[in-house]
């Protein structure tokens, strides 16, 4: 099995890195993640048409490849299945564009491994957003307030893709993980709360993206955001239905 340089939990942990056309940064991210955590790394190549997969393998990661683009949520779902099939108890999710600091990843992972939380979310300090417009900032704040109230934990950065999952969360999200854009981060929080998981927020610092192209234009993001609000609004009713369906034999 993999070298257990770090804690004994290192062999029980799989680092998931969803990557879409990130050939410029993925090798470096894989490298530093392995160095800092001593865990196996799985890069989910979400239908890239560049050299992402080869770069990742070269840097010592396992790679699984989607036949076409499924989005970050789809990548995490695939990753959760692999993790669970390999019998891993912990999962750390990391961005491939170098926004997340591997040393902070250790801290995030410890929240689930040592402190026993089910889901740990790395959140930027307050509103430490660097390039964000007024409208977007307001939106993010509104989102943060709504979600915080729902899940009973204050979280500023609801769309953060810097997360650690404990055994119960891996088992739950193996079955299903929201795949639509923004649902994979925000709706996942609501689902985790429904499942009765302990959610903790760990303040982290993030780097500006080191490469890659930020996704999508204005109208499209507006529609996606609108869709997200619909998801949030309808969620309580859905949760009710899901509970009832689970109760029935």
């Amino acid at each position, binding site marked *: 099995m993999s070298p257990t340089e770090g804690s004994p939990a290192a062999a029980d942990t799989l680092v998931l890195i969803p990557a879409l056309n990130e050939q410029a940064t993925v090798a470096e991210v894989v490298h530093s993640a392995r160095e800092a955590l001593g865990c196996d790394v799985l890069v989910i190549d979400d239908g890239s048409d560049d050299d992402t997969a080869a770069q990742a*393998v070269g840097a*010592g990661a*396992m790679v*699984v490849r989607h*036949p076409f683009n499924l989005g970050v949520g789809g990548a995490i779902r695939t990753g959760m*299945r*692999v993790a669970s099939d390999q019998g891993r108890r912990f999962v750390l999710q990391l961005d491939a564009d170098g926004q997340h600091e591997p040393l902070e990843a250790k801290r995030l992972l410890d929240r689930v491994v040592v402190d026993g939380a089910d889901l740990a979310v790395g959140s930027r300090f307050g509103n430490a957003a660097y390039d964000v417009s007024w409208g977007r900032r307001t939106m993010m704040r509104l989102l943060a307030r709504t979600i915080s109230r729902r899940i009973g934990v204050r979280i500023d950065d609801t769309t953060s893709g810097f997360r650690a999952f404990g055994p119960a969360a891996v088992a739950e999200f193996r079955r299903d993980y929201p795949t639509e854009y923004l649902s994979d981060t925000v709706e996942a929080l609501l689902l985790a709360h429904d499942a009765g998981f302990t959610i903790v927020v760990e303040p982290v610092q993030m780097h500006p993206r080191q490469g890659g192209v930020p996704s999508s234009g204005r109208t499209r993001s507006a529609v996606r955001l609108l869709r997200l609000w619909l998801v949030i609004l309808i969620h309580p009713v859905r949760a009710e239905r899901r509970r009832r369906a689970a109760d029935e034999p």
Partner: protein
Amino acid sequence: MNLEIFVLVVACINLAVVLEFVRRRKLAESFALLWTGVAVGAFVLILARPVIDRFSSFVGIESGTSVVFSLAILFLVIVNIHLSVHVTRLDDRVEELATEIALLNGIRHPDGDENAPDGSR
């Protein structure tokens, strides 16, 4: 009388196109049934014009044409919603299949890593 002929022609074209698609297997029979139904509905409307006029005055709409239009639009909206539901389900299935294919194609392990985990823990 011109209106009746016009509707008749359109309905016939509709029917012909649908049947041709079915013949070439480009349209599932269940959907063909739906659109054939539409063509037949148009025939019925031609014959049932007096009934429509009576119905429209009964509901309080001045012209029978408006009634037909409203019903047609309503019908199309319902069909569209139905198709959206259908597409959503197909979408979910495609996603699930893509995930399965990714997993079936297997995991590439790091070059020259003899410790490569193989999932058989």
